């Protein structure tokens, strides 16, 4: 298991929604969403300030130091 704040793995370090997170090397966006519980949710993903379209989630592999944002819609005015 690769979890936030895990001290014992040697995986890849990314920043997810502003917080550090460890994950397996070459984790794809789709895998990250699955692990975070958003596999079937309507979200949008940005990696290093660039949108990763939904159609590319399955093929886009993350790299060390990537900054990932996962967003959704909430109430607002």
């Amino acid at each position: 298991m690769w979890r936030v704040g895990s001290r014992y793995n040697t995986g890849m370090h990314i920043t997810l929604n502003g917080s550090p997170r460890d994950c397996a090397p070459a984790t794809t966006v789709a895998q990250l969403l699955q692990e975070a519980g958003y596999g079937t949710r309507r979200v949008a993903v940005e990696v290093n300030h660039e949108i990763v379209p939904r159609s590319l989630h399955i093929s886009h592999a993350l790299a060390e130091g990537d900054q990932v944002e996962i967003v959704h819609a909430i109430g607002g005015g």
Partner: protein
Amino acid sequence: MALPADQDITMNIKTLDSADPLIIAGKSYGSRLLTGTGKYKDFDETRRATQAAGAEIVTLAIRRVNIGQDASQPNLLDALPPEEFTLLPNTAGCYNAVDAVRTCKLARELLDGHKLVKLEVLGDQRTLFPDVVETLKAAETLVADGFDVMVYTSDDPILAKRLEEIGCVAVMPLAAPIGSGLGIQNRYNLLEIIENAKVPIIVDAGVGTASDAAIAMELGCDGVLMNTAIAGARDPLLMAHAMKLAIQAGRAAFKAGRIPRKRFASASSPIDGTIG
């Protein structure tokens, strides 16, 4: 003199909305009341208030998901499905053009290529007044990128014109600070904006109660966007209903053409034939 039958008048009122649509980016809307979806108790209240307001265009915010906390929570888009409402993602909380543009791109991805956005770039947290310099920059970038931009701005007529010239599909001056409920603070600026505009002018922010919305419409605004005035009312559903009526009344009064203001009286009853 032939009097219009009551049913004709009723018919006219009923068809007013559909005969007098609000057109934004080529799409027609029957309702001129646009509502926000923030500050409600839950999604059920959000949906019921939106329905009571008769709103067809609803704003929403784009935010980070809370990792590990809300993955199974209900989603706003379940309560307000994109098939049923025109969603208007906003850039609320953005204080510079770069963040606002990023937010719009995320919204477009989230909503499967959706182009209509509400651009707001704020200047400071106390007033939430728009940062007009950053707003102009973001508007230029977004329009060039193919977005249909409805832009929140100050009630400055020159700036409103500039935003229209950039290619924004609607210009949305504030009536008063966001959430303040102070009502229309500068109706002469709004009038100037309205009279010079070729795109819809929608008052966005500052409305407190139904009469404020009616005044905006009587001035000739094409619509009003509000959130706090409804969501923060003691009875949000009843206020949503009141706002719907106010928007309709204000629009009808604008179309009907009000009498000029006069300083002295003008008798309503004929003077001829009085006894004595």
